[in-house]
């Protein structure tokens, strides 16, 4: 077990966003969190990464309690995340962007007096990460001038550059065309192997991606976990398919099941 949550509850005023959520993530797992809008998925990610403190409940990372520890400390422990909406440094080039993560991981941020560009270690590693994500040709392009898919990829790449053990991805392919989605996912999986990331947790709406990449799926509805099982089991769970995925997905999945 690498990351676990026990009985998380989070209220926004009267509204209960997380209602007793518990689960465990094991080393080597690719876990997808699914659920309709407002199910509490992003709140869960925010609580897991310590941005939000839950009203009750605890989060553990390798036997160490990390509830509400905050993103900056968490990144140093080995947990990183990416964002649902594009979250970039608009005026940074791709390479500079990645350098921020590498400088921070190497603990060189308080290096006041050495030239960044002459630092082979930092520039070299940034280039490596850019290559992994197929961004090396755009290394000198400003982040704000990248196409949407590349912005998304850069956001994820910077989290990978921290070389975390666990990474949480909040809809890594949202706002990206369908044809690009699979490409991004494949890059993510191969890059995580290359970098040595042990577990991936992602929130995702695209069911094709969820079912083809996940080892396990956690289905949420109204702040609760409805089901926590393998994709094969989830597919057969009618309640989950219809309440969580909604009418359209419900129809889609059943029609594919019928075709088989």
């Amino acid at each position: 077990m690498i990351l676990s949550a026990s009985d998380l509850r989070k209220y926004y005023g009267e509204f209960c966003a997380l209602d007793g959520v518990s689960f465990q993530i094991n080393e080597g797992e690719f876990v997808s969190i699914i659920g309709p809008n407002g199910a509490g998925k992003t709140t869960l990610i925010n609580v897991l990464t310590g941005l939000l403190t839950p009203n009750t409940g605890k989060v553990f990372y390798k036997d160490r309690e990390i509830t509400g520890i905050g993103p900056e400390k968490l990144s140093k422990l080995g947990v990183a995340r990416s964002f649902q909406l594009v979250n970039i440094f608009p005026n940074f080039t791709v390479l500079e962007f990645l350098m921020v993560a590498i400088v921070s991981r190497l603990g060189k941020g308080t290096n006041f007096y050495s030239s960044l560009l002459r630092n082979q270690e930092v520039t070299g590693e940034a280039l490596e990460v850019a290559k992994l994500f197929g961004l090396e040709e755009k290394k000198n392009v400003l982040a704000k001038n990248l196409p949407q898919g590349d912005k998304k990829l850069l956001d994820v790449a910077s989290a990978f550059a921290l070389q975390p053990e666990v990474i949480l991805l909040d809809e890594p392919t949202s706002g990206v065309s369908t044809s690009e989605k699979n490409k991004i996912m494949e890059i993510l999986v191969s890059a995580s192997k290359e970098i040595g990331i042990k577990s991936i947790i992602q929130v995702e709406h695209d069911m094709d991606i969820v079912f083809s990449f996940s080892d396990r799926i956690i289905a949420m509805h109204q702040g609760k976990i409805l089901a926590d099982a393998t994709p094969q089991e989830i597919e057969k769970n009618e309640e989950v398919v219809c309440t969580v995925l909604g009418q359209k997905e419900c129809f889609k999945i059943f029609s594919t099941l019928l075709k088989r």
Partner: protein
Amino acid sequence: MKADNLTLKTLEPKNTSVSFKKTKTWAILAIALFFIILPRLGSQYVSYLILTFFGYAVALLGFNLLFGYTGLLSFGHALFLAMGAYTVAFFTSKFSIFPMEIILLVAIVVSAILAALIGAVCVQYIKIYFAMLTLAFGMLFYSFLIKFYYVTGGDEGMRVLRPYLLGYELSAIPKMQFLMGGYYYYALVVLTIATWVMWKIVSSPFGLCLMAIRDNPEKATYLGVDVKRYRWYAFIISGAYSAVGGVLLAPVIGQVDPTLTYWTHSGTLVFMTLLGGFTNFLGPMLGGLIYIFLQDKVMSLTTYWRFIFGAILAFLVIVAPGGVAGVISSLVKKGRRGI
């Protein structure tokens, strides 16, 4: 140019041709040479204004580390400038300690400590709240200087006696000769060192982190950057720089008084920076230079110089938010594309 597209970059421009780099080196050498021979060329008055500029230039380097690089607008930065100037006044006229090097060192240490204390509070906030807090601290210091008149001389301030430069006592020679001779070059050397050190700071990994914080503090946090701590470091460096500027300025003006830390003086630093352009490393200094000469000219023409400066500021913000440096660099870019 849209205002929200403005930003400061430090890393070397890409695909810079060798000829452009050579031009740059020559330009820097030419500027240095100009400042070196200036007191021998023109009028004493021009050199005197340039000497004032040297002081402001150092202060502006510090100011823009916070504003241009970290994204924090301090509206009380004159506090640190006044700190530096009062340090010279205290040391020379109260303690009879004259060596300039000691005064500089003490000013750096004292202002860094003060900036650490004030900064610890201020960096908890951003945007307008940060600006207002720094303004409040500046005005607090102003009240202190006024009320504790038996220590500070109140609104009359204190005299600044002539400091020793590199151990040389230069009190026998006339004032203008002292300023145009040894002191001019002393200040020029301090400014050169300060500029060089600041350039190293902004092109270091620390500088990169500051710009990351400016662009997107939330993302920076997730990449493991301790945002508040780094803002605090920037605040301290910035305060110390402004104090050094104040130290350089004090012997030139010869008398320190509380208006040095009044909020309009902080506003002057903001104005200079906007005039020259905060999106360029040298921009604020250029702004300081233009401001000093423009103010001198306009003040001699009319008593309504503030009115004219207000109009200039409004014009700048609307038409050229990148300041003079922004206009120049866009012209250079156009020119290079044209070749």
